């Protein structure tokens, strides 16, 4: 379970085949900075999840990729071209699903998809086939003749997803595609996104559902316009806790300080006299050593397990650390925070990489 620095390296530095490159990008609206120092490189054939609370700057970032907004500073490149200089051929390679419903209320589901397919230049025969395929894919085939205004919120999101996919684009930009969709259908949508990824498509997906981080190949956590973490999902856990996390309960009082200095142990948090949280390099290797050390001191171990934080918890930790780091000029203060709570500075991780 050790962190593989190369995995972070590959997503934080320009790869040879990066579909999306965002370098030192900031965006201001009058005197308000909405995005700050964003660096992001999305290799071909991956799903990049952009996760953050509402108002974090996700949609602003997406709109810069579509060419709707220009960065105040920095460079954006999509499919090797700056968005404001997109040619028709470039646009035909991009699929975009906006956050809010933008289709025609008085057209049916099928007509809306057919219209978007026509905009992307699909000729009749292929268009007919693709409309049928995506309608079935998003489970709207049975309501294809229903006007969009009569579709439920979830159906509308699926309709927009179908429109983004109908021309079979190379890069698919989805702004909160699973918002308002029930968990069962959300699963099937992610399944389809994985299938697209496996077929070589590159996907950039924003979401407020932190739990969906697990569905992505790379996750960029964005808070207040800054990327506070950028890593594959498993690495996020390690970023949040600075390693693997062991949860130990003892049958008698035990001083966690006795574990400091053990090989592989990075930090110990005492959460009550009989409850410890130990951050280690590798849970598999360190767990027996820690248990043995406690027992050797004459205290029985009631339970010992590797703790897998939920992405909600990880997100909360990273957000908290990110916020503190932005305001902590003193490096020691930041490090002590990390030592106290466990998380590694995500900004440091990104910049180190």
């Amino acid at each position: 379970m050790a962190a593989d620095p190369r995995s972070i390296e590959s997503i934080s530095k320009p790869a040879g085949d990066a579909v999306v490159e965002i370098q030192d990008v900031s965006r201001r609206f009058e005197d308000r900075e909405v995005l700050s120092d964003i660096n992001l490189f999305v290799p071909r054939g991956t799903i990049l999840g952009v996760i953050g609370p509402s108002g974090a700057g996700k949609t602003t970032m997406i709109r810069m990729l579509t060419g709707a907004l220009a960065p105040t500073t920095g460079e954006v490149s999509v499919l090797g071209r700056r968005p404001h200089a997109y040619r028709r051929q470039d646009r035909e390679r991009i699929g975009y699903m906006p956050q809010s419903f933008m289709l025609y209320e008085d057209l049916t589901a099928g007509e809306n998809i057919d219209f978007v397919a026509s905009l992307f230049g699909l000729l009749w025969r292929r268009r007919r086939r693709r409309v049928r395929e995506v309608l079935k894919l998003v489970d709207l085939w049975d309501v294809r003749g229903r006007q969009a205004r009569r579709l439920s919120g979830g159906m509308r999101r699926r309709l927009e997803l179908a429109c983004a996919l109908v021309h079979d684009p190379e890069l698919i930009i989805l702004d909160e595609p699973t918002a308002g969709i029930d968990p069962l259908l959300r699963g099937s949508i992610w399944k389809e996104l994985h299938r697209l990824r496996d077929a070589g498509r590159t996907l950039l997906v924003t979401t407020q559902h932190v739990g969906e981080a697990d569905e992505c190949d790379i996750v960029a956590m964005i808070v207040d316009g800054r990327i506070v973490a950028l890593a594959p999902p498993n690495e996020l856990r390690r970023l949040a806790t600075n390693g693997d996390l062991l949860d130990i309960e003892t049958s008698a009082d035990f001083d966690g300080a006795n574990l400091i200095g053990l090989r592989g142990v990075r930090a110990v948090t005492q959460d009550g006299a009989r409850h410890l949280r130990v951050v280690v390099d590798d849970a598999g290797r360190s767990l027996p050593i820690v248990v043995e050390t406690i027992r050797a001191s004459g205290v029985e171990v009631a339970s010992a397990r590797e703790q897998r934080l939920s992405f909600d918890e990880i997100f909360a930790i990273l957000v908290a650390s990110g916020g503190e780091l932005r305001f902590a000029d003193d490096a020691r203060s930041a490090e002590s925070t990390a030592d106290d709570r466990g998380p590694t500075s995500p900004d440091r991780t990104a910049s180190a990489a």
Partner: protein
Amino acid sequence: MRLFKTPTRILAIVGKELVSIVRRPSALISLVLGPFLIMAVFGIGYSGYRRPLATIVVLPADSGLPTDANAYKGVAGDGLEVDLVTTDEAAAMDRLNHQLVDIVVVAPPDIKTTFEAGRRSDIQARVNLTDPVQVAYAEFLARGLEAAINRQIIEQAVDQVRSFATDLGLRDPTRIPAYVIAAPTAADLDNVAPSEPTVVQYFAPAVLALILQHLAVTLIALSVVREKTSGLFELFRISPITTAELVTGKLIAYGIFAGAVACATIGLLVAGFHVPVIAQPGWIALVAALLVASSLGLGLLIAAVSDTEPQTVQLSLLVLLASVFFSGFVLAISEFSEPVRSLIYVLPVANGIRLFGDFMFRGATVVSWQLWLLAGLAVAYIGTAWLLLRREMARA
């Protein structure tokens, strides 16, 4: 295959717009059937007959003139309806002040004596009106009354002179009738126009032009602004469609729709109101096409400068208001001063009314420059709107 993509995109816009129009029957009803209904009510209700002004004639107490109102019918003409003949001027003025009558005519005392003394008598026509058009009409009627009374006086004088001449033994003094001497000429109006439409028929080209302009301006402007405000422009921006394709698609769609409305309207006007159409259908079609194209361009321009639907509706209504006032629909364009008159022609409907009227009622026009002007307006409006919308689509 790339060659077919542009027509595919344009046809997508055309199809989408036409479907949207058909699925919004309320818009159709208000924009198309509404004006038809107004025209129908106008046709049924308007007779072109101007109500005669209710009149009181005030006579001097010792005038010896008849006090029967019917005796003054011929003198006053059709414009005045004498309700009462009285000697009580104060009571008559009281009724005028209370707007119970429109005009009080006060006859001067002893016209004959004054005439014989070689002086003019003043007939006072008093009105209580604020409407300048009505005042002008009353003045016109007063002049008519004055002429009629003068003619009667002359006829009476001629009769007196003739009987005096007979008494003197002059030969055939009655050869020339008194009314010919009093009014030696009579105007006989001969209209050489190829057709003489009724009042309702005369307004038909104006109604047609106004419907077409209002429909074209409003529908295309709302269609574009809805797409701007709903965020659909963002979809267009990321898709390969160009502003030119988008604008072309909309022009074709609304052009087809307005063409259908024009055909239906003309059919209804001809079949229902028997409006004469003398010119070849091609001329009517040309005027309709140019009017619709320039109106669609104006609508696109409104959409390009509007940020919200209410703003678009306001601007469309302003255009409609300006069209009603300035286009010749209510007031003749020739009644405006020169700088305003030149400006009026930037309204497509001002040219459309004149051209439709000429081709329908005369079969030809002497203002063919207005055809070129309509074409120029179409190019100018569409071109400017295209530039503005292109800038908006590309804005980043």
